[in-house]
């Protein structure tokens, strides 16, 4: 598989993912993008090596009691912590990390209609700092115009969309910021499927979508 990703994640986001300091919804976008993008994968592994150097360099509170080792040996004897077995489904659209959150391939997504063929599925991420959702936009359909209340990462999984400035296809990430207003339109051809993570609810400008916000949590 050769990906031709044109729009990458920023280095600060990749470093924050390696450091483990992002909200889970953003982690999910980074892990999914990295599954499709070798150069960002290489950057994450580089930043993990830097994390190793930071760990090695810790200088404070390094005293250790024998009781500490004994307690750890007792934990070890009790056996490994139970972890759910990963779902071994391979999906042509959803990268591995998304399969785990959806609980299967694309056919397992529980879509909710937003009208005019647009659908979404909110994914179960633990923290409430940010929300992750899958979006389904029929080919040729425009998303309602909106501004952002915070940061938004949108990863294209199928089809493509374009806004005023750029075109985004499978593997590409669009990074939306607070001061940005745009009108993405799904290209003709395949329907567009994206993974979007937002720090704050999207602010729709049209009257009806705004009234629907509390209902659909968009």
């Amino acid at each position, binding site marked *: 598989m*050769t990906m031709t990703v044109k729009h990458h994640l*920023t*280095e*600060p*986001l990749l*470093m*924050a993912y*390696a*450091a*483990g*300091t*992002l909200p*889970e919804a953003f982690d*999910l976008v*980074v*892990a*999914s993008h*990295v*599954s499709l993008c*070798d*150069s960002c*994968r*290489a950057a*994450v*592994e*580089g*930043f*993990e*090596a*830097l*994390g*190793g*150097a*930071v*760990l*090695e*360099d*810790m*200088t*404070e*509170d*390094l*005293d*250790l009691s024998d009781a*500490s*080792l004994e*307690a*750890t*040996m007792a*934990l*070890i004897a009790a056996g*490994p*912590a139970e972890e759910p077995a990963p779902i071994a489904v391979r999906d042509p659209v959803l*990268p*591995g*990390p998304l399969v*785990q959150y959806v609980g299967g391939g694309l056919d397992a997504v529980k879509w909710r209609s937003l009208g005019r063929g647009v659908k979404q599925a909110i994914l179960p*991420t*633990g*923290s409430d700092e940010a929300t992750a959702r899958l979006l389904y936009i029929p080919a040729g359909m425009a998303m309602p115009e909106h501004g952002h209340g915070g940061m938004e990462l949108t990863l294209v999984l199928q089809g493509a969309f374009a806004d005023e400035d750029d075109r985004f296809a499978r593997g590409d990430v669009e990074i939306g910021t607070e001061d940005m207003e745009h009108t993405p339109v799904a290209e003709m051809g395949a329907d567009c499927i994206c993974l979007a993570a937002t720090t704050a609810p999207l602010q729709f400008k049209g009257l009806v979508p705004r009234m629907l916000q509390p209902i659909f949590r968009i």
Partner: protein
Amino acid sequence: MPSDNTATARDNWTELLVRIAEHRDQSAFAALFRHFGPRVRSYLMKSGASPTMAEEAMQEAMAAVWHKAHLFNPTKASATTWIFTVARNKRIDAIRQQKRPEPEELPWAMSETPEQEEEVARMEESKLLAEAIGKLPERQQKLIRLAYFGEMSHSEIAADTGLPIGTIKSRIRLGLERLRYEMSTKTV
């Protein structure tokens, strides 16, 4: 890098992890624990855990090092880097109470590069990075640590650390390209 053990051709920490994975060697674990246990606990405290919580989470992280030792691949990461990822995941789980989505695994086992050479390269990289951090101005060192302790938002993190991470990135990138080439020629 190992300062409280005698240096050998193979990274000491790598050797100990392999002994844990292959022989369930308790004395190897004790040596690894004495070095990394306090560092992991210190890292967790800097990341916002109370001393009691940090001690508890450190013990769980080090127990995970024992149970997951067979997953450690010395050609992919140095022992220090791998233990950092285990500690980081414990921090996300225990302090942030989140799950950790991981990227899809790549079939690294198919790499044709001699393993010994790769291992030494990982060890050298870690050593160079640690030395490079030590040479940075104190203020910049502090900013890097703060980024890893979660005391900075991603927008506050500086993209350019002034460290030789670019070299590691290029090396991994080349490895991935070679791997994909090997896989494409084998499946034809």
